[in-house]
């Protein structure tokens, strides 16, 4: 059977991928930018709009990182506003399970689901780092190994809250004088685990999706397992065809032991793209964008992320450092995930490549880090996307434009119609459909079933 392609629209993030030096680059914070990207995605019949989150400004060498786009809104608040300017588009927000409590987050997603008519999705992330924790009364207190345990319990707590009102609890019957149906569940909950001991009454009646769609971002073994036992979708970096097929097979194989079918978890890599009328033009535009993404200052900074040392005295147009990184030195980067597992090996590989091709630091960084996932004509990009989906390298993509706010315009105008021609992408939104339905996830699986399956396997 032909699979349908799932498409998400990632609002450009606070990293060097987002080009701010281009004359077409707009505000990263004005609501009009969010509205523009969301409306474009909805015009292109996308499944959902996606927002990342970071709760402390990144620092490098003890200073706030100043080279990339920085500054973003509160995720939930801006999504509630985007709900007002869209009608069908799913609204996916990245929210920490570490610096929040289930009661609040369940309230916010329950509210967003009501206010959007069943379009809410939650990308669950965890962070154990004390650096970000300095902004919060909770502090940073999680061992790396404990974070997925807390996250799973957190999501489970939210599921119990979302279900705590009966589906028919709101009678709103003035003749009988019953606002809530007598005897119906109206928010009572009691949840006690290793990380939580909460009880009382939830304020938000059951929402259209009951459970918002749960996404998980993180490619580690723990992250994959978390997705298998707790999520509806996984946002991954494995966007290439071969890496995608291996990842897809691995993740989907984990589902059976939690009593789940392969279709119940969607694999959605993040993907960048550059389009042109010809392949050569797309290549040329791709090179131009990568030079914009990697300024001389950014090149030095990205080199420092591997060498883990102050390289500010190096010339971006000159050769790489002749020495190896010191893996024992304390990390100079804070506020983002560690990017390289074996920096010494990476450094040696980069140096060899630079010597072989006679690349400067900036050229090398552009070569190794900048390349877009898809580069080509609309027809070739549509073909590549479809091939990845049909061959089970993924179920769709979360597209990351490089420009705010117009970075998705061209894709919607040129690639979407070609996917539609292939019969692998919708030609209109079905009315009255929740995001969960649109993604083919079916009705929310009861929280007790999630919990039982997880307990059975984790305890076994």
């Amino acid at each position, binding site marked *: 059977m032909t699979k349908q392609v799932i498409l998400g629209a990632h609002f450009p993030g606070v990293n060097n991928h987002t080009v*701010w030096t281009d004359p077409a680059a707009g505000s990263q914070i004005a609501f009009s930018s969010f509205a523009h990207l969301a409306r474009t995605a909805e015009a292109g019949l996308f499944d959902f709009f996606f927002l990342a989150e970071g709760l402390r400004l990144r620092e490098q060498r003890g200073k706030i990182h100043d080279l990339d786009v920085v*500054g973003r809104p509160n995720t939930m608040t801006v999504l*509630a506003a985007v709900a007002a300017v869209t009608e069908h588009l799913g609204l996916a927000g990245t929210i920490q399970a570490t610096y929040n409590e289930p*009661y609040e987050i369940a309230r916010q997603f329950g509210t967003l689901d009501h206010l959007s008519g069943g379009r809410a999705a939650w990308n669950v992330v965890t962070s154990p780092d004390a650096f970000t924790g300095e902004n919060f*009364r909770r502090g940073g207190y999680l061992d790396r190994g404990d974070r997925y345990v807390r996250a799973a319990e957190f999501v489970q707590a939210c599921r119990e809250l979302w279900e705590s009102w009966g589906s028919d609890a709101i009678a709103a019957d003035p003749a009988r004088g019953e606002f809530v149906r007598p005897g119906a569940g109206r928010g009572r909950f009691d949840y006690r685990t290793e990380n939580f001991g909460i009880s009382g009454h939830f304020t938000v009646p059951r929402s259209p999706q009951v459970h918002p769609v749960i996404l998980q971002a993180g490619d580690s073994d723990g992250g994959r397992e978390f997705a298998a036992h707790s999520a509806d979708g996984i946002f991954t970096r494995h966007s290439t065809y071969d890496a995608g097929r291996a990842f897809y097979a691995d993740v989907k194989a984990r589902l059976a032991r939690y009593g789940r079918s392969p279709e119940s978890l969607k694999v959605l890599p993040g993907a960048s793209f550059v389009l042109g009328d010809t392949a050569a033009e797309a290549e040329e535009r791709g090179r131009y964008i990568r030079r914009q993404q990697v300024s001389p200052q950014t090149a030095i900074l990205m080199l420092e992320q591997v060498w883990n040392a102050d390289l500010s005295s190096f010339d971006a147009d000159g050769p790489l450092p002749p020495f190896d990184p010191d893996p024992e030195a304390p990390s100079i980067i804070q506020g983002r995930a560690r990017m390289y597992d074996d920096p010494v090996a990476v450094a040696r590989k980069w140096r060899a490549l630079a010597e072989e091709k006679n690349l400067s630091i900036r050229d090398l960084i552009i070569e190794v880090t900048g390349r877009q996932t898809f580069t080509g004509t609309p027809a070739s990009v549509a073909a590549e996307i479809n091939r990845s989906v049909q061959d089970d390298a993924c179920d769709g993509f979360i597209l990351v434009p490089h420009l705010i706010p117009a970075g998705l315009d061209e894709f919607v105008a040129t690639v979407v119609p070609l996917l539609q021609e292939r019969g692998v992408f919708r030609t209109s939104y079905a009315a009255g459909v929740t995001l969960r339905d649109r993604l083919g996830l079916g009705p929310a699986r009861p929280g007790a079933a999630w919990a039982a399956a997880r307990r059975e396997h984790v305890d076994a």
Partner: protein
Amino acid sequence: MPETSEVHLAVALDGAGWHPAAWRAACARAADLFTAGYWTDLAREAEAGELDFLTIEDSLGLQRPRRCDPRVGDCSDHVRGRLDAVLTAARIAPLTTHIGLVPTAVTTHTEPFHLSTAIATLDYVSEGRAGWRPRIAPSPAEAGHFGRREFPPLTVGNVTDPDIAAHLSDLFDEAADAVEVVRRLWDSWEDDAAIRDVPTGRFVDRDKLHYIDFDGRWFSVRGPSITPRPPQGQPVVASLAHGDVPYRFAARASDVVFVTPASAEQAVQIVAAVRTAENYPERPRPSLLVYADLAVFIDEAPGAAAARKRRLDDLDGAEFTTDCAIFAGTPAELADLLLGWREAGLDGFRLRPGALPHDLQQITRALVPELRRRGAFRAGYAERTLRERLGLPRPASRYQIGAA
């Protein structure tokens, strides 16, 4: 606020209205209370009446109507359940253009960092119309929803016990710290921090981003915010106060205070008490704007509003009482009352519609025209931001060199 003879009006939105049986009134949209359309329609109505701002009630626990004893009945004849007020305000924002949006958000169990970015974002999506009503959550039931703190039982009878009074006073102190953190974070980006300087490759001038380094009894917060300084610089903070402790909180934390006089005479005393509290030595802002709360039932025909209120009382099986004065009468009588009370030194009124949407429509379509006929209500929205409408200057960031 500028020296004019105009009355400032705000409306307090809560569920189906402030009367516990309001959801059973003929006008009620009881089945729509959890929909975006319901709240948007109310906001548009308030905006059509050119009110200063609307507030949205919220709490981290389920409503417990005064009359309802869960040990006796299951309270099924009252509205129960509510949506998050900040998100509701954000959902309204793009569909309105003038009215101020002031949601309630609790300071007790929440993160000041998240509160700060949420209200700043509301200010962005409303283009300068955001406010925030901070409130405390003293009950052990709400504490149980978070499982991190144990609070003593709270009853109508024990609020003056020394232990309970100390508990409440602590929560107000914590709330004042929360507002301080929120305000510092709003200032932690100077207005012109994003420089987009291509030659040096810098998007921001990091010298214009500031650590706030707040270290208090309940929490410490490092900063800076992840959200740039909001359009108003400092969104409006408004708090409800019934006594000296919350008056002092308002003096420390707020721009606007909602008070609850029972009469014009009492309004004089309350305004005096607020001004006394304001002598708090560290208040860095202009004088508090004092709005009196008033629950209102309004109909054109003499006696109709009182009869309507009585019918709701009968449905509910009890006479409606609330923490503020209750008015039932004609638009002209309400105009008389407001203009009379204003002489006590009040800057404005926050009206709590007894039943929605009827009493809101009576405010916007009957009371406002009546006040306008008397030259006591402005014609049209002249200002862009909520601060401007309230006569509050836009302050420079406290971290800006040379800031006052």
